[in-house]
């Protein structure tokens, strides 16, 4: 029993990380219907910038409490990534807004390659260790272990989701976003400044990416210029699972994907009588994803949208 609880906790924490990245992903998608392959890379840049600041702070003021140092890193990483997000939208996506649907996909891939290689030039090819600054204390729940940092990650992802939901549903900006997502032309006719709404969406999404990057790198204790790609991919899967463009869906999709992966890795051997092992963890996850989409073609919480060629 305690093993099952532990696997559930493992899955929830992993899922919260996916959700954190997926929330930014899904926001951008919701408004532009664009698979932003570069989102994972923004996450990576966030982690790298924060680490650089943390390293500098530890050199200048080693007596500061760990949390303050990490906060310092976050406070620099978030604006840097916001600026980056703004620049990405301006340079690579806005000129292609009326281009064929797959054109921005290619610039996104190009951007992702460029950002990786720029990061490699700046921060080197090595894996960078995240210093153990955050509280690592462990708590016992029903015979399973959960650390303070893990609890914090789960709480953070829920808070971010609620915050986003509030912005989108209850504010003027959110209304403009929803209007833009439905139809750019009509929104523009109604006096919405479509360009600035889309730019703002990118900036918010990138800020979330930075936050996610710092959390991922603090939790796993490392950062690397290649870390964003896989993370972005998992986040994309999570967002699709929940219904892409839907904020609650991204959260649900992330958590589900995490739990599915953890339970898959833990129990797939028992389920198949030892024929398949944890090496088929991703097969299991993708299989469930496909199964869900076969029965709900627009994801778990997604609305049926009109087709776009």
């Amino acid at each position, binding site marked *: 029993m305690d093993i099952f609880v532990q696997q559930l906790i493992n899955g929830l924490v992993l899922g919260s990380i996916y959700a954190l990245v997926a929330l930014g992903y899904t926001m951008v998608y919701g408004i532009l219907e664009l698979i932003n392959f570069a989102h994972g890379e923004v996450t990576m840049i966030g982690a790298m910038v924060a680490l650089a600041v943390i390293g500098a702070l530890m050199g200048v003021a080693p007596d500061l409490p760990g949390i303050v140092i990490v906060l310092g890193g976050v406070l620099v990483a978030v604006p840097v990534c916001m600026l980056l997000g703004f620049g990405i939208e301006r340079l690579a996506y806005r000129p292609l807004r009326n281009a*064929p649907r797959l054109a921005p996909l290619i610039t996104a891939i*190009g951007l992702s390659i460029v950002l990786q*290689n*720029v990061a490699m030039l700046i921060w080197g090819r090595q894996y960078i260790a995240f210093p153990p600054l955050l509280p690592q204390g462990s708590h016992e729940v029903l015979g399973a272990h959960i650390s303070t940092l893990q609890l914090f990650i789960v709480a953070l992802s829920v808070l971010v989701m609620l915050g986003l939901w509030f912005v989108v549903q209850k504010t003027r900006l959110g209304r403009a976003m929803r209007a833009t997502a439905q139809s750019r032309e009509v929104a523009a006719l109604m006096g919405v400044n479509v360009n600035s709404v889309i730019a703002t969406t990118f900036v918010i999404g990138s800020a979330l990416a930075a936050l996610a990057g710092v959390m991922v790198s603090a939790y796993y204790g490392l950062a690397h210029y290649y870390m964003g790609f896989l993370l972005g991919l998992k986040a994309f899967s999570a967002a699709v699972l929940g219904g*892409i463009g839907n904020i609650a869906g991204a959260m649900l999709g992330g958590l589900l994907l995490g739990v599915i992966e953890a339970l898959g890795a833990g129990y797939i051997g028992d389920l198949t009588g030892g*024929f398949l092992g944890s090496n088929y963890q991703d*097969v299991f996850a993708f299989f469930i994803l496909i199964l869900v989409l076969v029965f709900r073609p627009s994801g778990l919480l997604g609305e049926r949208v009109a087709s776009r060629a």
Partner: protein
Amino acid sequence: MRIVDFLRARPRLALLLLAILLAVLPFLVGAGLGKSWVRVLDFALLYVMLALGLNIVVGYAGLLDLGYVAFYALGAYLYAWLASPHFGLHLPFWAVLPLGALLAGVFGVLLGAPTLRLRGDYLAIVTLGFGEIIRIFMNNLDAPINITNGPQGMNLIDPIAFGGFALSKTHKFFGIGVSNAHLYYYLFLAFVLALIFVAMRLQDSRIGRAWAAIREDEVAASAMGIDTRNVKLLAFAMGATFGGLAGGLFSAFQGFISPESFGLMESIMILCMIVLGGMGHIPGVILGAVLLTVLPEALRYVGDWQRALIGRVAVDPADLRMLLFGCALILMMLFRPEGLWPSRQRKRELHAADEVAEQESASVYDARG
């Protein structure tokens, strides 16, 4: 551009010149740039086959497929199973290649069937998952029974051989040594020409028009009486067949395959080729495939360019190569969003607004005249 106009007026002459160029290309390239570039040409032709296949799915039928490399993998592994010491089978290539294409085609239908209701990005993620599933199976089926030899890959795969004439060796023709890279070039070229023919015929057929109809508006297409299910499945199957064939050729050419050759990045690159070249337009797709295979290799020489331009190597070429590649992708797309060489129809659709404006202003001038 005068030469282009001159040749456009004389299509037969143009075709003849093209044929001569293609025939002597490996020797020109081999003599001028080295044999490694003949090898690059070989890979470029393989990617042309893959791009032509994916073009059927994405370009013709408008189904976004991010797992296309799975079919390439299936073809490659089938060839390795039937023509290597792994199972001790050594069937001839003319038996194995069609089987590989068939197997890939069957899997194309298997992938297509559950995804018929999915659209756009939902389809993208499912196909992506399918590609990964196939790769993971290839990577792990070394136990309990060793089928794929897992991550170690399969080695000593038989080359393509006509009787005793194996393409893996250097042969002498009229006293000139012709290496394996050259021989495979001609084989691949023959396959590419055949596939171009098939792709062209498909595009102009009833099915091709059905694909176009689905791509433009699926609901309207089914209202017009098109059996969207079968037509979509056929697109997946046809595309997959091309991939399976290319996979078998890759296996024979390289003599060694391992799952790392069939990763997600490969699928993404093939997609980039067709979008960059001009979706749905065969010459564009070919251009895209050649360009994206040649460009990363050409960028290996940034060290030499630096030496030629500023007299020393200021930045390590290895640091710059992929960076420049990424920049090139972005710039090409920004300047030609419809692709480098789009079909005329597609270009017209995209620039419809400009054209109307042009016509209007033209008519104004007419009136004045």
